[in-house]
């Protein structure tokens, strides 16, 4: 299979852990943060008019700044703001009663749940899928953001979110939201269970030594959201297996 992987900083773990023995031809297109939101159509290709994003795409793909979806047998969309924390958007403006360390305005658990739901219809994954579909009917596999490291529960400012109901609910809602993309030659490769410490947390061994996307440097110790090459390998293998399984059915 000829596979394009398009993603944000979470692509780094998959790239560094990509299993060498796979027979598939693979190209990585990545740029950190939400910069892939800038992707646009141009003729038969997708590109970013943003110089920094184009620079990172070229860096990750050995020089390519244009993605031509019809050239690939499969597109993997990696990360792209699909983790449970995206459903916790209000954590920076509000808090629940459980968090008595912050002076942010209080909201009830019930309202928090409503705010999480409201986040589902937003984000740039929809836009990326639409862009690809404008060019090609290529099968798409979504590889969501990893769950944060289990160490996050000890984090002073955000730990409370992951210790209680909010973390579990957010992960559940993220999963439900991602499930809704299934069909129309789109599938989701959820995080393999062997990497999970809980449904909403990744085993901490997989976040140790995770590399930053933009520079050849490890993330700081208290960075809980990015994973290492060992994690990337497990996730990549699971995704490849799913793609190989689906490919015949998805064949034109």
């Amino acid at each position, binding site marked *: 299979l000829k596979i394009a992987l398009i993603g944000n900083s979470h692509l780094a773990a998959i790239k560094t852990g990509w299993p060498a023995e796979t027979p598939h031809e693979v190209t990585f297109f990545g740029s950190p943060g939400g910069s892939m939101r800038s992707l646009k159509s141009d003729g038969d290709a997708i590109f970013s008019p943003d110089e920094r994003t184009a620079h990172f795409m070229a860096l990750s793909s050995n020089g390519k700044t244009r993605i031509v979806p019809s050239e690939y047998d499969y597109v993997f969309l990696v990360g792209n703001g699909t983790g449970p924390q995206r459903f916790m958007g209000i954590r920076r403006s509000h808090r629940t009663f459980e968090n008595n360390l912050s002076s942010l305005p209080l909201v009830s658990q019930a*309202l928090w749940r409503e705010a999480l739901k409201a986040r589902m219809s937003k984000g740039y994954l929809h836009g990326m899928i639409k862009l690809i579909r404008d060019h090609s009917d290529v099968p798409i596999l979504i590889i969501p953001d990893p769950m944060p490291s289990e160490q996050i529960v000890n984090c002073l400012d955000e730990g409370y979110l992951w210790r209680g109901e909010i973390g579990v609910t957010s992960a559940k809602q993220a999963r439900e939201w991602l499930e809704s993309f299934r069909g129309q030659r789109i599938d989701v490769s959820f995080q393999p269970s062997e990497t999970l410490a809980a449904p909403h947390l990744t085993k901490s061994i997989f976040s140790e030594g995770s590399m930053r996307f933009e520079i050849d440097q490890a993330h700081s110790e208290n960075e809980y959201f990015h994973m290492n090459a060992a994690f990337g390998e497990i996730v990549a293998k699971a995704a490849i297996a799913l793609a190989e399984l689906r490919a015949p059915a998805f064949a034109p």
Partner: protein
Amino acid sequence: MNPYKGLPEHNWWRHAVEGRSRNDLIGLYRKRFPVLRDDKIATAGSCFAQHITKRLRANGFNVLDVEPPPPGISEQIAQKFGYRIYSARYGNIYTARHLAQLAREAFKKFTPVDAVWERDGVYFDAMRPTAEPEGLSCPGEVLAMRAEHIRRVAAMLRKASLVVFTFGLTEAWRHKQSGTVYPMAPGVTAGEYDSAKHEFVNFTAQQVYDDFCDFRSIVKRRNPQCKFLVSVSPVPLIATASDQHILAATMQSKATLRTAARMLYETFTDIDYFPSYELISSPYFPSAFESDMRSVSDEGVNSAMAMFFSEHGGKDASKKAAAATVCDEKLIEAFT
């Protein structure tokens, strides 16, 4: 000589009302002072005040929102949780006593008694029992949320240049010993009614007047420039706890509130009266109500607000936020 001779047109029913279109009720409302776009407006009151709030916001008036909802949630969900209905998340304030009590609480002169109500293992703020429809996990959470709310109400009263208040009811329920007045009877949505602890009260015009004077003086002490715009809700009572027929109780209540409002207008030059009640409730405007003869029709609200904007400027009296009004009173019917 006849004392009516020479009186202006608006003093005569035949000239000023009969046959007049609703855009042509000259002189029914003559502003006492202008309401400006850059006024910091705080709104509160009974259900009808929600219409005023929405129309003011939609027409670019600066209605304060000291308790905004979390970003990204819809207007409908925000309103379900008591946000964006008024300038703070206090829900409907039907009586002048409740308004004065809230201001006292904001400036630490009052603490409500029996302020946390329970229902099926979850807890509610007795002073705004519908703000959290699913209730809260423990009394401590209710009190923490209330403390935060009260801080914001205090900030709002300190910075408002105009308080818009709609008088809704004279009937209320209160805690006998402390005098704490509740917006809804205990036991309707939560809590438990206990005749040894709670009593029914039907305020007189003098009491309504005194309560609003109390509120005014609390605000003026911290915010001397603040002005007030009052109105009487045209919405009839949904139920009465008095021994009168509901129609008689409604008329008495509205007459009482209207009297108090007039007394306030005559006493204080910083209080204006907006006659939406007169426009909507008189025989002049039979289509101002929906078929239940209680809910004010869009036509009724639009006409009232057109009258307001004709004096204060405003593009479109029919412009409003999409969400419906939140009328806690209806819960009395639903839970009884």
